[in-house]
């Protein structure tokens, strides 16, 4: 059994190489290999359901053991990683067909599998070196995936990789600091060192690690790479980025908050606000700000994928907000939301990807009325947006509800208000998405659009089903989460297959009842509706236009600037742009650096020789003067 953890980690990497080689034989060999190996990974992963392994040494470096481990929490993240990767690869087969350069495609699949492997490595890591190593591998492999998306994606990818490197190096400093104290980077040893060190040291460690995770999880103010990267990446890559990759940041936060630094430790070394250690409280506020501001930004977007990208920032805010509460319910909610967000956001990105595949645009105001042409994609998108908006009975609702309850229990009302506002704002942008793409007037150039091929539909079907199942039976996920959290010292929360009894929460929830009553009332209303005379279908041009006649040439659609009036309300907020601030400083540093570099390396031999004289003088002076002091 121990071997199989390493096997699980190795499978996608080996698979990636074989896929690349397979591509030399034939493109179908490559496609089948890619699907097969991700399927294999999923299969191997499922063996570890609810099992725990502590420490499977796979090597050692500089005197620190390298360890792979697994527990139910890691299983949850493994599930996210492997399942979404598989679906993405299946989706890619048709979606990426247009790419003619076969070597680009070969390496594309290889990198998909590499990213998957790297993320598995991150999750399975039992020590910080393994963690950091796979973290970096994930960064650069995913960079190559992003830049597959064409001209604009290059700038996006560049920004992504630079911010990733910065984040990773912040972690690096922390890891090295821990190493200097512990001489071992295995999680229990690290936890021991943190609990015995001075509070300042521990707090610095947490901040530095936190910066790395915040960059990846795109928590404000370190989110600026995400909207570009997620929207410019190829359609099948976006779900992987938004659904899975940013969850690695959330996983990292979980590990530092509850794996390396137990909640008690945090309480002991720093003051608490609302019974939350102050550092976690700040994290909560950053998460809440991400929720609200990203929601506002998402509402104002005109580009479907950018909208979803901002929505990801907002939703990851819920995950982080839940994780940072420190209560069983909140953390469970955060973890559950990580899973749910992976499911519905991947679904949404795939659905939008399907639309892009058929229409070639993701500009919301160019689309419209596609519901008649792509009914299945419409259903997928609607399920996704309902889940995203947190409306029962789909999965997004349950996890958000848990987070709300947790905040309410802790009386962290201001955060709760922000969480609520973000959720209501989500109604606005998700409606915008579905309206501008599928509703409204069908433009003439999309008259011949068909629904996507079956290989692209299958991943969406799977995700739709998952959305419903995890919505109605949250107990399925809770089995894993609660069991895993017990290992991290959390009190178990009361739950059953369908929801939560009143007790550990302030109110009860039984999603199956909501779902079934909704279904019954729907059927009743429908039957009632059918009782009356049948309706006659009319064309979209047979429409009220205040006496005018709507002709196909006339664009009779409200899509651009859908929430313009709301935009006027929130305009003052957007006078400050975090990205502009960053750009300002980067530009300033560039100008400064350029100026001084020119001053130093003048290309003039006299200058250079004078440097030599200066150095000799300094050295000699140091000797002569230093001699007196030594």
């Amino acid at each position, binding site marked *: 059994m121990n071997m199989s953890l390493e096997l699980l980690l190795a499978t996608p990497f080996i698979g990636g190489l074989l896929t690349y080689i397979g591509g030399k034989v034939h493109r179908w060999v490559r496609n089948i290999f890619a699907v097969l190996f991700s399927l294999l990974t999923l299969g191997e992963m499922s063996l570890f359901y609810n099992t725990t392994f502590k420490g499977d040494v796979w090597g050692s470096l500089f005197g620190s053991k390298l360890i792979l481990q697994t527990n139910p929490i890691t299983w949850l993240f493994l599930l996210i990683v492997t399942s979404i990767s598989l679906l993405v690869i299946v989706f890619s087969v048709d979606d990426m067909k247009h790419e003619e350069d076969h070597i680009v495609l070969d390496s594309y699949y290889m990198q998909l599998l590499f990213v998957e492997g790297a993320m598995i490595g991150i999750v399975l890591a039992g020590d910080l070196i393994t963690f950091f190593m796979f973290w970096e591998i994930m960064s650069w492999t995913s960079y190559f995936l992003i830049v597959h998306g064409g001209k604009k994606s290059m700038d996006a990818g560049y920004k992504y990789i630079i911010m990733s490197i910065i984040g990773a190096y912040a972690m690096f400093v922390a890891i090295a600091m821990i190493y200097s104290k512990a001489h071992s980077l295995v999680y229990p040893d690290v936890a021991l060192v943190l609990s015995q060190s001075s509070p300042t040291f521990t707090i610095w460690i947490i901040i530095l690690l936190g910066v790395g995770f915040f960059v990846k999880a795109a928590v404000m103010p370190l989110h600026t790479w995400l909207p570009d990267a997620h929207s410019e990446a190829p359609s099948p890559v976006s779900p992987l980025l938004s659904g899975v990759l940013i969850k690695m940041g959330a996983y990292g936060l979980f590990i530092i908050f509850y794996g390396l630094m137990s909640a008690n430790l945090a309480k002991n070394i720093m003051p608490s606000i609302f019974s939350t250690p102050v550092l976690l409280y700040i994290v909560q506020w950053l998460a809440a700000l991400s929720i609200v501001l990203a929601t506002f930004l998402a509402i104002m977007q005109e580009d479907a994928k950018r909208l979803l990208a901002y929505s990801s920032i907002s939703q990851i805010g819920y995950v982080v907000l839940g994780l940072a509460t420190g209560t069983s319910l909140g953390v469970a909610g955060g973890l559950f939301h990580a899973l749910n967000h992976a499911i519905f956001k991947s679904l949404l990105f795939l659905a939008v990807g399907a639309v892009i595949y058929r229409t070639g645009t993701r500009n919301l105001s160019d689309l419209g009325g596609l*519901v008649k042409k792509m009914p299945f994609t419409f259903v997928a998108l609607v399920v996704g947006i309902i889940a995203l908006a947190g409306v*029962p009975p789909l999965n997004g*609702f349950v996890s958000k*509800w848990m987070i709300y309850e947790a905040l309410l229990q802790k009386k962290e*009302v201001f955060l709760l208000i922000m969480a*609520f506002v973000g959720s209501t704002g989500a109604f606005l942008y998700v409606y915008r998405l579905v309206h501008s793409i599928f509703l409204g007037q*069908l433009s003439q150039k999309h008259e011949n659009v068909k629904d996507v091929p079956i290989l692209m539909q299958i991943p969406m079907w799977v995700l739709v089903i998952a959305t419903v199942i995890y919505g109605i039976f949250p107990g399925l996920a809770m089995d894993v989460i609660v069991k895993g959290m017990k290992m991290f010292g959390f009190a178990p929360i009361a739950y059953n297959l369908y929801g939560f009894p*009143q007790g550990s929460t302030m109110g009860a929830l039984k999603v199956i009842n909501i779902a079934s009553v909704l279904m019954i009332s729907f059927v009743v209303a429908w039957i009632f509706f059918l009782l009356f005379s049948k309706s006659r279908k*009319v064309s979209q041009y047979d*429409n009220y236009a205040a006496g005018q006649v709507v002709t196909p040439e006339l664009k009779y659609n409200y899509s651009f600037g859908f929430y313009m009036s709301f935009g006027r309300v929130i305009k003052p907020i957007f006078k400050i742009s975090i990205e502009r601030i960053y750009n300002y400083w980067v530009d300033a540093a560039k100008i400064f650096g350029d100026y001084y570099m020119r001053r130093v390396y003048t290309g003039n031999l006299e200058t250079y020789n004078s440097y030599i004289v200066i150095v000799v003088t300094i050295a000699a002076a140091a000797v002569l003067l230093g001699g007196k002091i030594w």
Partner: protein
Amino acid sequence: MVKMILIAIGAPLVAFAIGLSFMMIKRKIVARIQRRYGPTIIQPIYDVLKLLVKEDNISHGVIFSLGPIIAIAGSILAVFFIPMAGFSMLTGSGDLIALLYIMAIGSLGMALGAGDSANPNASIGISRALTLMFGYDLPLVIIVISVALQYHTTNLSDIVAAQANGNWTLWTLPLSAIVGFVVTYGALGEHPFDIVTAPHEVATGPMVEYGGKHLGFLMISHAFHIYIEIALFVDLFLGGASNILIFYLKMFAVFFIMIMFDEVLPRFKIDDAVRFYWKWPTVVALISLIIVLVK
């Protein structure tokens, strides 16, 4: 078991009846305020029936037709979660927070349907509706939080029970109650918040393409909507009621006061409506929330 089935059938009917009765009374009172005689009191029933039995119905597609159905289904679902005069029905399956989102199901369905009508007026209407919702949602969640904290529960039945013996939230948290009233106003789309349908601007907005039985369904769902919003207010602030008559009277009182303001106010611009809600109601609700927190 029989009782359960009876409740399951009865509750939506009662809710519909109450909502419809308010629609009837409203037209009469409004007419009187405007010094008109007004239509006969059962005019809305005529309207609904006439629309439902119309022979020629037009539809712009499946989603267009599903819109009103989902709107009603969502409304019926919400009815079950609001304690009605002692019957708590499904309050054990979803609490106040869940209710906030359950109430959104109907509106979302309606929005989808209206969007499918391919008419920009409908789209603008929905855009306004959602914007307005975003506006009043902020004070709404604040007062919901205040009430939940006040009674240390989010279970609506428990909240109602805690207000027994005249110990209403209206007395203990008057500021929240006032904000709740203003929010209910916006939620019902009454003047001055009838931005969504605004006949002179967007030709009744979302409903522009609806007619016949579809419009009839929308009117039915509007009746439910009136019931849901006011019943929720009564449960939260006026202590619910132990029998249906008192419940009805309380609701009527609320509705009556509402109409009194209704007809004398001009319509807001949409962004002004949001600004309005994010200003005073929010501040007042926050003050009330802080009072609860400190207490």
